[in-house]
């Protein structure tokens, strides 16, 4: 496993461009899954969360982390991206562990009707993401998404995502165009997005 603070693998120009294009593709096609993992097939608790932070964050942005275990990541972000920590209700980016119910999530910024784009981006770390309904392991949640970017309905299975957090996201996004846009990222490097425009059911 790579150390979090070793970012020699991440090229500020070309890696961020590649990650961004995958993010944009997934945001435009909610529920579509992209692989951030490069040729080396690395996985790591923070590896791909770090890749997203390096792609999106700079000194003009603020971020918050919910729950324990993010201390090192916070100092990493401050140093390498220049982004500043903020309270969850003020942050542009909010990091959360999918499997740990985070009631603070409900306070996250949703923007206002004049500027709904000021709603936060939630980056949610999960164990794994699979395309389609794939529940053989018994631990995954099957998500069904509808709305812009989805022809009909798209299913995906997410392991390591608490129902409480999904309920929170649904509540945050109940008054479109207000809401938050969620990026799911797994420790193995899979990526999927749930923009606020998506309708969502799960089982």
């Amino acid at each position, binding site marked *: 496993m790579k150390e979090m603070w070793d970012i020699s693998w991440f090229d500020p120009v070309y890696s961020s461009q590649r990650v961004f294009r995958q993010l944009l*593709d997934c*945001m*435009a096609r909610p529920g579509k899954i992209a692989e951030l993992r490069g040729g080396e097939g690395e996985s790591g608790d923070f590896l791909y969360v770090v890749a997203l932070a390096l792609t999106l*964050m*700079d000194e003009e942005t603020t971020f918050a982390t919910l729950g324990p275990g993010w201390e090192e990541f916070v100092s990493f972000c401050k140093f390498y991206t220049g982004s500043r920590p903020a309270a969850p209700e003020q942050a542009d980016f909010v990091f959360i562990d999918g499997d740990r119910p985070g009631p603070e999530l409900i306070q996250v910024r949703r923007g206002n009707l004049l500027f709904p*784009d000021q709603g936060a981006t939630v980056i949610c770390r999960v164990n794994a993401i699979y395309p389609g309904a794939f529940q053989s392991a018994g631990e995954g949640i099957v998500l069904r998404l509808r709305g*812009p970017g989805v022809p009909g309905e798209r299913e995906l299975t997410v392991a390591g995502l608490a129902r409480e957090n999904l309920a929170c996201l649904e509540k945050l996004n109940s008054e479109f165009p207000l809401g938050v*846009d969620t990026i799911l990222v797994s420790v193995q490097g899979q990526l999927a997005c749930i923009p606020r425009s998506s309708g969502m059911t799960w089982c």
Partner: protein
Amino acid sequence: MREKKVQSGYNFAFLDEQSKKEIRRRMLKAVAIPGYQVPFASRELPIARGWGTGGLQLTMSLIGPEDILKVIDQGSDDVVNAVNIRKLLVLTTGVRTTEDTREATLIQTRHRIPEEPLEDWQILVFQVPYPEPLRRVEPSEVKTREMHAEADYSRLWVYLYEDIVRWGEITIGAQYPVMVNGRYVMDPSPIPRWDVPRLNMAETLYLFGAGREKRIYAVPPHTRVEPLQFTDYPFRVEDFRCKQCALCGSVDTYLDEIIDDTTGARRYICSDTAYCAKRRRLKEEAGENA
């Protein structure tokens, strides 16, 4: 088509990384709120504002070394605006360019959607002069933003109604206002009416950049895009019945009217020049084989 050495001394794709980051964050928000205009800090570029700088900044923030780029202006690859934008991008990225719509991964366009169908691995970037569809009824940005917030489009509907009262039909040609995802009225940039139905439930991601007006907006694929219309005065596209392209003979493409300066004769030719040339080439090949 051409491969050139990248000009050293500039960052890849000209813009500095921090500018790209900001534009990328705005693009993600624009995609998440289809049709909503996201403000952004438009950067200075080596071309003047109002000459495609919005689209150019999106392209610069999107483009990677693997991309195959196409740039068009009113359907043509060879017009000065398209040529200059393409030159700047090639100079600072070294990417491969093409005129073939079916080959390009990234297409920057001024005022047209290419005739050939676009697919899910392609992105179309529009250059937008006036992003605000309500500007024709309300000069104040503060007020139009409020109107969007409240989804209050009554004054635009009255404008369209008055147009019908005065002229017998809605007279807006290019830049026809559309409703995106049933929520935001959006200016699709000055594309002809012909192209408007192509925005609806498309396979491709459409991104819009207005550099002078500092706005970014988007239509994701598979998103409802409906032209504003009345049941008794439905939206219609330009009428090219009994007309065909003088070069390739096409009867199902958007045509430009060319008036001969000396004789005054009218001719029609395809606005999408690359598609027209491709059709002629295919015709010739078919003729040779016959």
